[in-house]
C-alpha cells in the first residue's frame, strides 16, 4: 500500500487542553458535578485498559482499547474543567486523591470478570452515558455542553459495540448465553444508583442532567436490546450505592493503587 493512498488528518476536536486553557472557572457546584462525570469515565477507562492484550481476539483488544481511550479523553476534559475551580490539574485529581474522594458511581469500578461481564458493564455504562450526554449537550453551561457534544458521538459507538456483543453472546452458544446472563446478574444491581438525584444535581437545574430524567430513555433503549437478545429485563437485588458520596465497593481501592502508584512513586515523572 502506497503512503499516498489515504488522506490522513488528525481533524478538529475539543480537547482537555482546550478546556484547561479556554474555559472559565466553574462554580464549586459545577466543579463537583464535572468531577463525578470525569471519575465515571476515568475509572471505566482504567478497567477497560486491562483488556489491551487479553480480549478473545486481537481485533477485540483494539476495539475495547479504543473505547478505553475515548473514556480517558472524556475524563481528561471533565477533570481539567473541575480542577479549574480548585487550582488543580487533571493529573492532581487523577493521581493524588484517595479512595473516599472519588465520586464515580459504583457501576464503573465493578471488575471486568469474564468478557461477558465486561460487556454487561459496557452495556449499562454506554446506554447511561448516551442518555446523559444527549441531555447535557443542551446544558446552560457552555463547557459541559461542549464536552458532552463531543463525547456523545463516541459513546454512541460504544453503545453499538456493547449491543452487538450482547446479541452475539445471548444468542450464541449455551455457554455464551450462560455467561451473558451471569454478567448481567452481577452488574445490574449497580444500575439504580446511576439515576438517583441528590442535593447537588437538584441545585444545578438547567446545568446538570438530572439523573432521574435519564431513566426513561435508558429503559427504553435497553429494553429494545433485551427483547432482541430474548432476555428478560433483570430485576431484584439493588446495591446500596453511595459512590457519589465517596463510598465504594472493595474493588476501587485496588484499582487506584495500580493506577496511581507510578505518579506517587515518581512525582512529576514524564516520558
Amino acid at each position, binding site marked *: *500500500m502506497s503512503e499516498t*493512498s*489515504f*488522506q*490522513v*488528518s*488528525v*481533524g478538529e476536536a475539543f480537547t482537555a487542553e482546550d478546556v484547561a486553557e479556554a474555559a472559565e472557572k466553574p462554580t464549586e457546584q459545577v466543579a463537583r458535578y464535572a468531577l463525578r462525570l470525569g471519575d465515571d469515565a476515568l475509572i471505566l477507562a482504567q478497567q477497560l485498559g486491562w483488556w489491551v492484550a487479553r480480549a*478473545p*481476539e*486481537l*481485533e*477485540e483488544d*483494539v*476495539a475495547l482499547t*479504543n473505547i478505553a481511550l475515548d473514556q480517558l479523553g472524556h475524563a481528561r476534559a471533565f477533570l481539567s474543567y473541575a480542577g479549574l475551580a480548585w487550582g488543580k490539574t487533571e493529573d492532581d485529581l487523577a493521581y493524588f486523591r484517595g479512595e473516599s474522594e472519588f465520586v464515580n458511581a459504583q457501576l464503573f469500578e465493578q471488575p471486568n470478570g469474564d468478557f461477558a461481564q465486561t460487556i454487561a458493564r459496557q452495556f449499562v455504562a454506554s446506554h447511561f452515558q448516551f442518555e446523559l450526554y444527549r441531555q447535557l449537550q443542551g446544558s446552560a453551561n457552555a463547557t459541559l455542553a461542549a464536552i458532552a457534544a463531543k463525547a456523545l458521538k463516541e459513546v454512541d459507538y460504544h453503545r*453499538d*459495540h456493547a449491543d*452487538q456483543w450482547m446479541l*452475539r453472546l445471548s444468542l450464541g452458544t449455551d*455457554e455464551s448465553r450462560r455467561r451473558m446472563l451471569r454478567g448481567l446478574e452481577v452488574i445490574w444491581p449497580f444500575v439504580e444508583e446511576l439515576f438517583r438525584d441528590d442535593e447537588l444535581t437538584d441545585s444545578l437545574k438547567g446545568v446538570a442532567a438530572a439523573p432521574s430524567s435519564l431513566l426513561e430513555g435508558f429503559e427504553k433503549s435497553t429494553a429494545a436490546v433485551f427483547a432482541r437478545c430474548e432476555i428478560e429485563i433483570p430485576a431484584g437485588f439493588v446495591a446500596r450505592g453511595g459512590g457519589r458520596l465517596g463510598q465504594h465497593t472493595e474493588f476501587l481501592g485496588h484499582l487506584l493503587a495500580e493506577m496511581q502508584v507510578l505518579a506517587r512513586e515518581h512525582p512529576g515523572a514524564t516520558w
Partner: protein
Amino acid sequence: MSSPGGGEHETWPLWEVFVRASRGLSHLHAGSLHAPDAEMALRNARDLYTRRNEGVSIWVVPSSEITTSDPDEKDAFFESPKGKRYRHAGYYTEAEGVKHL
C-alpha cells in the same frame, strides 16, 4: 491456547477490508482482519483501519469469496499485452480536422 475460541476450528474467518478515503475516490484494499460475521467485520475495520481519520466508507468481503489469478499462470495472464502498443491511445496519430482531442 486451550480456552474456548482458541481451537483452530473455532477461529473467526478472515475478511478483506476496502476503505474509501473521500468522495470521488475508489475504495482501496487496506488489509484484512478476523471477525465472527459481516457486521462485526465492519466495526473491526472501523477500529483498525480508520483510527487516523482515513476513511468515509468501508467495504468488507469474506476473503474466501475472493477469486484470485493464479501466480503460476502469470505468463499466460499478463505477458500478452506487452508489445501490443496499439492498445494504447498514444499509438495512433491524430487525424487532421478532428477537434477536441
